[in-house]
């Protein structure tokens, strides 16, 4: 049989996002895969050097369109580390609750993408509907459905409105009450198991050598989670588990996503119980146009829903950052791990592997 070069290009039904893979195929099997990013490149790190510290704050959240809140969190954390600002106690709890809500919404989006690609349209519609209920909560708190611009250096922008936590608990009960239906229709369905078992396997020695992060590690039994390794915000005040599976294939990765989503819902209940009822939510920062931060460098990391997210920031004592570099989880998973995991698989599983590794295209290009 002869080899053929095939473009799994940007306009394709199995592709979520604007990303392209060049495949060398022989018959139905892939021999070599080469990722081709760059369709969404805006040059963020150069644009951020031309705006002041507070003007960057609405720009940062547009790096990852599915889950913008962890980008705001990591930018705020690194500016606070460079400038030496402390966040008050209630602000830390609000940050944790906000990020956990974003994690649940992002996992529901991932469930929509995966179920839509496999053809389970019923489950896809349910997942998108439940995500919309959460986006209504975000809209009541911040004023926008996506791109919230809520976590700023020094704390959060404003306090919870009256009765917000009760409405949030009711919404989460509505989502959680549907989990047995999700299980019966999708996760314990024999068709899904046959379609996802043994596909895109990444074993432990390969994952360590290729530098994988996120669910590719949790699916082989490694508890790599920055919320436990280096706790930030209010995560050291509550107890929660990290769910892992052994298996390393797409099936295990989807099950860890479901387990993490259920754990996040329970974690929000625990955080709401422990949160102090009164207190300040942000510390004041100086006049935005004249705020100068002392020279230095900082490297901070947090756990987004896709893996370990890091930010390296250098300041030279002026009103604008000198160098900003984001270390996003999709950069490693989408370029090194994906090219290795696709070798030997069939063409019909490319979208399957890409969505189960949780690669989203704007994070690679920035």
């Amino acid at each position, binding site marked *: 049989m002869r080899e053929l070069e095939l473009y799994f*290009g*940007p*306009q394709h*039904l199995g*592709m*979520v*996002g*604007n990303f392209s893979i060049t495949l060398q195929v022989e018959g139905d099997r892939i021999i070599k895969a080469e990722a081709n990013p*760059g*369709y*969404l*490149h*805006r*040059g963020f790190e*150069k*644009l951020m050097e*031309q705006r002041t510290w507070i003007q960057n704050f*609405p*720009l940062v959240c*547009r790096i990852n*369109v*599915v889950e913008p809140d962890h980008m705001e969190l990591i930018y705020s954390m690194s500016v606070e580390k460079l400038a030496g600002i402390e966040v008050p106690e209630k602000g830390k709890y609000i940050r944790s609750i906000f990020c956990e809500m974003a994690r649940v919404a992002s996992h529901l*989006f991932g469930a*929509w993408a995966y179920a839509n690609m496999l053809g389970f349209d019923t489950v*896809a*519609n349910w997942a*998108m*509907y439940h*995500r*919309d209920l959460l*986006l209504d909560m975000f809209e009541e708190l911040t004023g926008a*459905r*996506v*791109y919230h611009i809520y976590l700023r250096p020094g704390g959060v922008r404003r306090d919870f409105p009256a009765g917000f936590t009760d409405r949030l608990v009711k919404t989460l009960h509505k989502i959680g009450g549907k989990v047995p239906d999700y299980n019966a229709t999708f996760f314990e369905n024999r068709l899904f198991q046959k379609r996802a078992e043994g596909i895109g396997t990444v074993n432990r020695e390969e994952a360590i050598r290729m530098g994988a992060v996120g669910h590719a590690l949790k699916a082989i039994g490694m508890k790599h989670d920055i919320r436990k390794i280096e706790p930030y915000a209010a995560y050291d005040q509550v107890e929660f588990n990290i769910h892992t599976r052994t298996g390393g294939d797409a099936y295990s990765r989807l099950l860890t996503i479901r387990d993490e989503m259920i754990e996040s819902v329970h974690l929000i209940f625990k955080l709401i119980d422990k949160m102090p009822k009164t207190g300040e939510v942000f510390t004041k920062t100086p006049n935005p146009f004249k705020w100068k931060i002392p020279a230095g460098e900082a490297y901070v990391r947090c756990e987004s829903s896709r893996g370990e997210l890091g930010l390296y920031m250098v300041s030279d004592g002026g009103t604008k950052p000198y160098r900003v570099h984001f270390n996003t989880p999709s950069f490693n998973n989408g370029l090194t791990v994906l090219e290795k995991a696709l070798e030997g698989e069939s063409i019909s599983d490319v979208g399957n592997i890409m969505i189960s590794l949780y690669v989203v295209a*704007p994070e690679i290009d920035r």
Partner: protein
Amino acid sequence: MDRNKISKWLKNPGKMANKYSFHVVYFCTGCGIIEIPPSITTRWDAERFGIIPVATPRQANLFLITGYVSTKTLAAIIRTYEQMPEPKYTVAFGSCPINGGMYYDSYNTITSLDKYIPVDGYIAGCMPRPEAIFIGVTHLWKLIDMDKADGYKRYREDYVHYRANQEQILGELDWPPLFSKENL
């Protein structure tokens, strides 16, 4: 809604049928893709307006450009647009295709989409809500009724100028001209 105007249907049934059944090309071009899945699923149902996504551009007649356009995406957009059969309509989302938007000083994004492919309407916002998408579509219906949504006719007449603009940004193009003097 003028669904009850039987005379319009009898006069030009092709145009009315074309208008009430938009098939959208499934191409996630930029940021705005985050508000398309809520519009096509059950909460804000787009199928009651006749909108449904299809797999290939050969079967489509509406092209939604959701968000900013980088130069690599511009080549893919032009190739997709030229594969669609006529009559076809283009709607641009967000504030980035209008004048560059938030990335006005980026070295990789274009500042105005109307210079490269013809755009029939714009929906403002960053991101627009699903209700804004539906208002945009109903406004496009009115434009089609008045025969003002003629982007594809302009593309056919002024193809030489569109191609000159595309070549000024992208350099030498890999594909031959769509309309030449013989088949115009």
